[in-house]
């Protein structure tokens, strides 16, 4: 299969040179990120564009896939936020409630 960098190098329009370079930089950055979501997004994006170049997917199909990936990212980030709230909210609320209701008074009385 042709490498995505080769495909991008084949874009002849000079007015797109900077955009293509920026895209490749972002793609590499996402692919090297420690986040699995970023890596997965980079891999899928590169795969779909490669499939477009080889004629396995049409331009319109790739566009709908990229839009779907954007929506999946929204859900994943929201779920990560839910998970973090679920983990931290009780811990930190309990910590501060005990401080407010007991520890502050106990220190003053000591």
């Amino acid at each position, binding site marked *: 299969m042709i490498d995505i960098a080769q495909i991008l190098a084949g874009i002849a329009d000079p007015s797109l040179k900077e955009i293509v370079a920026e895209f490749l930089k972002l793609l590499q950055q996402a692919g090297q990120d420690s*986040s699995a979501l970023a890596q997965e997004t980079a891999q899928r994006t590169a795969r779909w564009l490669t499939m477009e170049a080889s004629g396995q997917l049409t331009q319109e*199909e790739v566009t709908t896939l990229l839009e779907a990936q954007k929506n999946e990212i929204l859900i994943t980030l929201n779920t*990560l*936020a839910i998970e973090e709230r679920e983990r931290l909210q009780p811990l930190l609320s309990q910590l501060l409630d005990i401080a407010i209701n007991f520890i502050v008074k106990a220190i003053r009385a000591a």
Partner: protein
Amino acid sequence: MKREENTPRTARIMLGPMLALLLAAGLSGCAALSPYSATSYQQLTQLKAFHLMFIDEFTSETPQLLDQAKLAAESGAGELKFREAEEYSVGLKDTSRTYNIQVLHRMFENNLAWLQEGNSFSKTNAGEQKTVLQSAYDQAIRGETVRTGASK
């Protein structure tokens, strides 16, 4: 790499500012996360099965005229399922749950719009669409099962 294995680290990397806001909201007495809902979990798993089957129903290797009556029926059935799930979620008064269902609903509407424009899903496209959908639904389901009260 499995996403679940990376979740806490990923969250710290990607959600720093967002997390600070969420925690500030939570600690200041704003609406807390609602606990696990078996009904919402069931609705999400049913929506996942329905949506993936919906893609299969309109997948064809060769371009062909769509069965408009079948499309209308499937569209109506899907719309009803999403509305039921959204309405139930709104009643639980937790926008974090409702948000995921609304985004899934939008993904269904986008797939529906593709068909309404006269396209079907090629086998290759259907495979890729379903890969994204499966991940999206798995994450939404995870958003339910990480809540207090879910069996661990």
